[in-house]
């Protein structure tokens, strides 16, 4: 059976992804542990969100400390659609995502002109301003009381498979954004914007496109989150801690790589679960230490360690000095 794939897709990667999805989809049938089931669902959302963050932070090199703004917008739009207009869940997820994507363009289009740390600082401002304003707009977010969604008893369990789909789509998109011709253009922009435009790469259009996708995906993650917990409130959705968690996942897992942030997300969530039970007072310091160690010794995080292990050199990841000089 010959499936027509674009030239830049390696068949083995596609098979690998498909296999992983099938395996994960079958897990609940072999082992009914509800606790792990729910934990995995949350991990899938985390994976999707971290990958989406990485498109902006890793592929484009624009580290965002305010991505929670889109997460919240997506979540609250979806929640309101389900509450006020009784839209079906998936439709409201889609609309929530689009709203979040559009929102990211509004603040992102002008600020993406900024390079380096200036952009990151701007994102902090955006994240916090969004949180404050949206908490104030209680017609949108319910204020600090938040919004309670109507509860469906089996929903949380079913969301597991939706989560697999979401994460798989994010992985596929990550792969596509990197391996496709567009990915090469992104790499060019990341290393030298001016040189890139000299060879005809339209930085603005591509950046906007990536920004929109990133915002869209994070928005859908927010909508998923809202359906999962059946209750959301702005302090939690728009919180700075949430934005930070994706930065940590991306950097520790391997910023700019295809699957690094996914790995970072898995580790982050698993470690948190373990620490919460035994050493809740230490996880801030642990992440801080990991961050410091990664930046100093292995800028590509865990993926970098792995690559060193298999002695592979990846010159394309050495752009802008985020990897060890070859």
């Amino acid at each position: 059976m010959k499936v027509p794939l674009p030239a830049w897709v390696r068949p083995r990667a596609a098979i690998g992804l498909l296999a992983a999805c099938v395996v994960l989809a079958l897990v609940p049938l072999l082992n009914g542990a509800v606790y792990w089931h729910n934990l995995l669902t949350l991990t899938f959302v985390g994976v999707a969100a971290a990958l989406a963050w990485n498109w902006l932070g890793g592929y484009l090199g624009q580290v965002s400390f305010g991505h929670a703004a889109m997460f919240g917008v997506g979540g609250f739009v979806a929640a309101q659609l389900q509450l006020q207009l009784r839209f079906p869940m998936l439709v409201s997820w889609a609309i929530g995502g689009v709203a979040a994507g559009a929102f990211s363009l509004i603040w992102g289009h002008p600020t993406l002109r900024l390079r380096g740390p200036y952009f990151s600082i701007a994102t902090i401002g955006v994240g916090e301003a969004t949180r404050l304003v949206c908490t104030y707009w209680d017609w949108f977010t319910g204020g600090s009381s938040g919004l309670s969604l109507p509860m469906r008893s089996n929903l949380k369990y079913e969301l597991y498979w939706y989560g697999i789909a979401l994460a798989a789509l994010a992985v596929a998109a990550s792969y596509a954004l990197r391996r496709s011709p567009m990915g090469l253009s992104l790499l060019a922009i990341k290393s030298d914007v001016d040189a890139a435009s000299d060879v005809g790469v339209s930085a603005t259009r591509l950046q906007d496109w990536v920004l929109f996708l990133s915002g869209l995906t994070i928005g859908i993650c927010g909508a998923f989150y809202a359906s999962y917990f059946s209750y959301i409130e702005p302090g939690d959705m728009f919180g700075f801690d949430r934005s930070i968690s994706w930065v940590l996942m991306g950097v520790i897992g391997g910023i700019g790589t295809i699957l690094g942030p996914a790995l970072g997300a898995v580790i982050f969530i698993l470690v948190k679960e373990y620490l919460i039970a035994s050493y809740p007072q230490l996880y801030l310091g642990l992440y801080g230490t990991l961050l410091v160690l990664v930046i100093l010794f292995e800028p590509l995080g865990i993926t970098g360690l792995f690559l060193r292990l298999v002695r592979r050199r990846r010159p394309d990841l050495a752009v802008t000095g985020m990897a060890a000089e070859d």
Partner: protein
Amino acid sequence: MERFAELVIASVLLAGLYATMAYGLGLIYGVLRIVNLNHGGMIMAGAYAAWWLHAALGLDPYLSLALVSVVAFFVGIFTYRLLVRRLPRGAAGGVQSLLLLFGVWLILRNAAYLIFTGNDHTLRTSYSTLAVGIGSALVSVNRIAVFGVAILILVFLHLLLTRTYMGKAIRAVAQNPDSCTLVGIPVERIYGLTFGLGTALASAAGLLGSTLFPFNPTFGGAELLKSFVVVVLGGLGSVAGTAIAALILAVVEVFAILVIPAYLTAAVGFVLLVVVLVVRPGGLFGQRVLG
């Protein structure tokens, strides 16, 4: 009219605090081209140091200011030698330094949680609620003292940068590090000293803040963001620019209550930050480097 006078005085006093907070951040970026995200952590550390000295030794915060600043200075040099020095200089190091110092901030926060718990701490002195009349308004003595110290610090800095060898070396390195090496200025040492100086300034600001507000380990976050606004508005490293930018921010924040609901005045600073970054990333006074 009376209310107007009150608001003006409040703005001016607040501006002094903001200027002190911002200067350290601007200095480090101007010379090292590094955004010190640990700035918030050192502000917090300064506040806790002041509180601890007051609680354990009965030392008045204004008296422990010198001690705290000096200790912070060496902590800054140590941080530079141990960590920051290993980062590549220039554009490549930009985001990395951001993340590295952010990690340090997380560690400091956790340390504060472990040592002091997450509860709020208040520094109460005999003059905490003392007020004097200025015109028709009642002004807190504490705030005036904070403002006074802020002015002293800024004057001290200006003199340091313009009259001493070290100060001139710092300004030279900020302009062109490579030429400095050619001329025999120990660039690495200057980097370390500058980082130490910036850290000391942050801790001093934290100490001053501790006399005014209760604080906990998350203290410094909002202050960091306001420092960004001031630094970006005022351009880099210019003493006058920082002071004026601090005044602008304080005025906008305080007077905003006349036009928008009180709750949203907290968002004013952030919106201003984004607007200024988009419209004039070089700051209102252009990209001046220490003058």
